[in-house]
């Protein structure tokens, strides 16, 4: 329950942080303010993660690693921008390689996590 509350807290802070970062509000926010908010986001997410993940049973530690690995392949988002933005060709190509590497983790990571979780079964109730 506490984990859920913490999660909600982080989500609320996240909403506050992202709305502060949109172009509309950017003019009234100084650079430092925006970056301090990023630190808040990091801290709250880290605490939330800590709360939730300490509750993951050892039984599921391998799927947990595979899952967090797939989730951290969110760097795909940054790679996409670099591959497609108006930058010198060699930077676009670096972005393309990054997109490929991150996609391997996104696709492979979620597929393999699902494959693993599918295997965990309870004892069937005797008929």
């Amino acid at each position, binding site marked *: 329950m506490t984990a859920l509350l913490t999660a909600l807290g982080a989500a609320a802070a996240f909403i506050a942080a992202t709305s502060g970062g949109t172009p509309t509000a950017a003019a009234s926010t100084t650079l430092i303010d925006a970056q301090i908010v990023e630190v808040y986001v990091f801290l709250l997410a880290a605490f939330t993660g800590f709360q939730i993940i300490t509750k993951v049973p050892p039984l*599921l*530690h391998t799927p947990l690693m595979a899952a967090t690995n797939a989730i951290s392949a*969110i760097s795909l988002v940054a790679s996409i921008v670099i591959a497609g933005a108006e930058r010198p060709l060699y930077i676009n190509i670096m972005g393309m390689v990054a997109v490929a590497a991150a996609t391997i983790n996104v696709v492979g990571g979620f597929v393999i996590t699902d494959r693993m979780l599918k295997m965990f079964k*309870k004892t069937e109730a005797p008929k």
Partner: protein
Amino acid sequence: MIDQQIGALFVQIAYIGASAAFILGLRGLTKPDTARRGMQLAAFGMLLAIIGTLLNHEIVSYEFIIIGLVVGSAIGLPMGLLVPMTAMPQRIAISHMFGALAVTLVGIAEFLHSREYAGGPGVIKMTAIGFETLFGALTITGSFMAFGKLQGFISGQPITFPGQKLINAAVFFGAVGLYIALVITQSGGSGGDSGLIMFAVMTVLALVIGVTLVLPIGGADMPVVVSLLNSYAGLAASATGFAIGNNILIVAGALDGASGFILSILMSKAMNRSFANVLFGAFGGEKAAVSAKSAEGLTTRSVTPEDAAMRIGYARNVIIVPGYGMAVAQAQHAVRELAELIEKRGGRVRFAIHPVAGRMPGHMNVLLAEANVPYDHLFDLDEINEEFHTCDVALVLGANDVTNPAAKSDPGSPIYGMPILNVQDAEQVIVVKRGMATGFAGIENELFYLDKTSMLFGDAKSVLSQVVTEVKGL
């Protein structure tokens, strides 16, 4: 202009949704029956974030993005579908490499791009870019080395050489020094080639650190290393978020970082060793100095599979202790068959799983789940340790150091203080083992010399198959 704002708003909404999906998805992982749905939610969140990003107004051309997505999927999908469960430690290690590669490339690209800003990247951005590249680069090579050790093309033994610690320290401080220098000199955008050279040298040194960090670490310490690299990959992704001002990267990276950190701590605790000891200790180097109790004068009792089958077949309460030996022999299916037989004959079977059994956190659980052992039969150290004295037979399968009573009784032992499974409390113990070789720590296991212990020598899979046949014939 209005369109652009609506677009930006949509991107942010997609990212918020994705963050919530990631957190709730991980929350699903706290219970086996909600885990699968949770991860499907997280995958949906990822899809949302990707679609949102594709609408980013900065993107002017999609060719490179599409090529990258197609190539990545073409490699990732078969990897996800086909990698056997037995190869899971390697697969986890190599996936940290791919993640770190993406992060490092983004870091380098951001650094090169930031040199074009009039005022330079600024202190915070430069700090983030440097951190991202430093940790990303060392995770690339570190994960590759871990992959090599797990896959077996690099020796699983600790690799040490004279002056190693000195060289490691020099490389490490060199990289960190350059990082600090970069933040001081490049934040203001002074430009010039010196910044480029410093950045390049730092990246190369970080790649070297990854190699030297993992080289001296042995196979049995891999659960800590893999967890730690997991944490680094997450922190580097989080730093990327700071570098480009993107909150979803910060959130997802922090979640991954926290997870890797928790796992590393759990693994270190389960070995009664500090982080620093695992990373810099290189167990092998100290091995010679420690003379554990010698086995001279002690005798073991070896039994045949028929004999073992008699005891196991008539036991009412059996606890099976799997270790890396079970994984190597791929004996999990034979184990499941034996467990089912015992249950059919009216006995009870439970599995006792030590946190560091195997080569990654949760390794044994995944193998046994693959062999269709129901997860309510699998118990952690804390859950089952008091139960050993109630069981007729404890069956140890290729586990060694995690069952060594010296961890409790012998203050001179290198593993003294490490939490162990109290196998010695069982009424009788059967140990399946290939030979009398010591475990990774290089210490004799007193358990093998107890009167109640019978040694069943041979490959776990073939020995267990024989036991299964014999039990069927009882």
